[in-house]
């Protein structure tokens, strides 16, 4: 028996934080690729300390719903899951390349394939593009459009900026959008000045965040000038300094994210059959999770 456990941050204050994790778990549960699909959280229940106890399988694939490698993926999750002998060198990563490591959870004796975070997986690039498609309602969106990938910034973790640059570069290489730019909340180039960084009239702005919350729902829309007060909402697209800004909200709520989770597990050795293709097909055209 093999199980998938998706681990995420969660929140004591806001149910939106865990909503995408539940949605993606449901999508994967529906394609029957695993005997069990469970979720565990730092701030919600079951806690990371106890989630493995809720799993009957001996073989467990753990995929972190985090954007970057760093404090949570390197310290908190392995410690709380009690992954015996974990050392970050197991991932042999440059901050972007963590794939997986196989360890034993001392609490339950299960074999745990601990995967790198979803945010640094190459297929996350496709999710960013899909997000642009879903927010514009145009599956061919690209020509005449600019795309901004927005990250938190280096204040907390330099790997987080690496992930933003990585995906921005990859989208640029696709030659699909007229312009692609990485922007940040806390450092230059800042999302506040989004209009200055683009010549295209239409700009899709996608925050590389797992869940919608304070930053994606309040800070970023206000900083970009989409609205003076997030509570009054904003249009999509909204006019800002002569540009039409298509603000997409957190990429993690895009239903195609389930595919990234599956790919992480498959690369760690999970037998997922044709689930990846099925998820790709099913999540296309279905409304984005959380919308």
């Amino acid at each position, binding site marked *: 028996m093999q199980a998938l456990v998706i681990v995420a941050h969660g929140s004591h204050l806001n149910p939106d934080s865990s909503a995408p994790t*539940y949605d993606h778990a449901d999508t994967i*549960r529906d394609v029957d690729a695993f005997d069990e699909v469970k979720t565990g959280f730092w701030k919600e229940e079951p806690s990371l*300390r106890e989630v493995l106890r*809720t*799993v009957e399988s001996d073989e467990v694939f753990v995929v972190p719903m985090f954007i970057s490698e760093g404090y949570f993926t390197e310290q908190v999750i392995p*410690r709380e899951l009690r992954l015996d002998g974990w050392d970050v060198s197991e991932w042999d990563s440059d901050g972007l390349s963590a794939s997986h490591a196989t360890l034993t959870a001392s609490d339950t004796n299960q074999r745990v394939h601990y995967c790198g975070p979803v945010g640094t997986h190459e297929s996350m690039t496709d999710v960013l593009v899909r997000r642009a498609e879903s927010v514009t309602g145009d599956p061919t969106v690209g020509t005449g459009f600019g795309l901004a990938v927005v990250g938190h910034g280096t204040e907390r973790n330099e790997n987080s900026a690496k992930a933003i640059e990585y995906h921005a570069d990859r989208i640029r290489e696709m030659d699909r959008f007229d312009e692609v730019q990485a922007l940040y909340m806390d450092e230059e180039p800042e999302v506040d000045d989004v209009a200055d960084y683009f010549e295209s009239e239409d700009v899709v702005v996608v925050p590389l965040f797992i869940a919608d919350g304070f930053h994606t729902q309040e800070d970023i829309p206000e900083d970009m000038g989409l609205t003076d007060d997030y509570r009054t909402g904003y249009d999509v697209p909204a006019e800002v300094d002569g540009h039409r800004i298509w603000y997409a909200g957190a990429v993690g709520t895009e239903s195609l994210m389930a595919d990234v989770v599956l790919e992480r597990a498959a690369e760690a050795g999970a037998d997922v059959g044709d689930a990846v293709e099925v998820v790709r097909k099913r999540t296309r055209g279905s409304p984005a999770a959380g919308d």
Partner: protein
Amino acid sequence: MHAGQLDALVDAADGGDGVDFDGLRAGRDGDAFQFRTPHTERADLSEAEFREVAESNPWYVSNWFYWTREVGPEAGAADDEDRHTAIRDGSNARRAFLRWAERADDHGVPERYEALADGVTREWGQLCVTATVGDHGERRYHLRHVADADADADLSSLDVYAAPHEARSIVTYDEKGRYRPLKTAPTLRDGWAFPDLDGRSLVETVDVVYPATIPNWYREREGCLDVTHWDETAERQTGIYDIVDELDEEAVEWIAESCCVDSQCLKRRMWDADEETELDTDRGDGVFPCREPCSLVVAAARKWTTLEREESRTYEFELTPSEKEQVEEIIDAVAEGRTDEIREADVYEGANRYRARFLRAKQFDDEGNLSGTPTGDE
């Protein structure tokens, strides 16, 4: 009982150690079969006779089949050491829970089947689990809120669900629409039912409502619940929670009293200040144990750690005796979550809104300082 179950029993009696389960014993000695229950004892049976006897004891057969074939056999621990360091909760916990649900450890098969015909009901936190048995011994489970336990068997007044994960829509918000960060808070809303679950989906649904309570309860029953006390939990914290190990034992007592008592959380607190130092606060009466301070408590403790760093100062306030009592009543009403229950016009209650507004109008200056006394810089 159906034919497949009987065939399975013949096979099982025929092979290996035979069958010994819930009072049913069946096996083979040479060419002859035996069939035994607390009420029947037959030996020297041909296979045809064995089938006939088994057929006249259908409950024992279908009960054996349900527990060993559908729920799955009990998995033994690899060895004793394994039991205590790393116990396999998984399927054993599920099985133990389902047996608990029908009181399998307390009653023999005939009493149980008779009881299951009407439904055996047990409480798990605010959940009410009813087990019933079908024609072939298959168990079906019905789940609803304890507050709806007496609601008519007809489901018309309840929202009916089928799939375990649909329970998320019930557990996320309380009846006032507020987010429930602690799943075991006694604020589960009522008015819903899962009327027809099999064993596996029952356990899954309970796990959505009260995550990880079944495996921890199971470990406790097996005598190997691992408790992580406050000191160890605090010690383990890093990042912004690193500071919580500064709290002294008295403050830890206040934490348990604030968060872990039955009025706030249905888990039975098993953790203490440390291995040697029990807290005085009541552990609670919950069915399922709490094996370590939860993330909500750790997060709250972080705030309390910073608050407890402050030195106390002396302030001078002039309050009438009734005003002092009123302040006490307000704190009490907020702490107990009673403010909503205080009627608009009930000015006899200290925490009545008009009373509080009167006190504020009289005692606060324009900056919101009580008695006009500034808080000071610290």
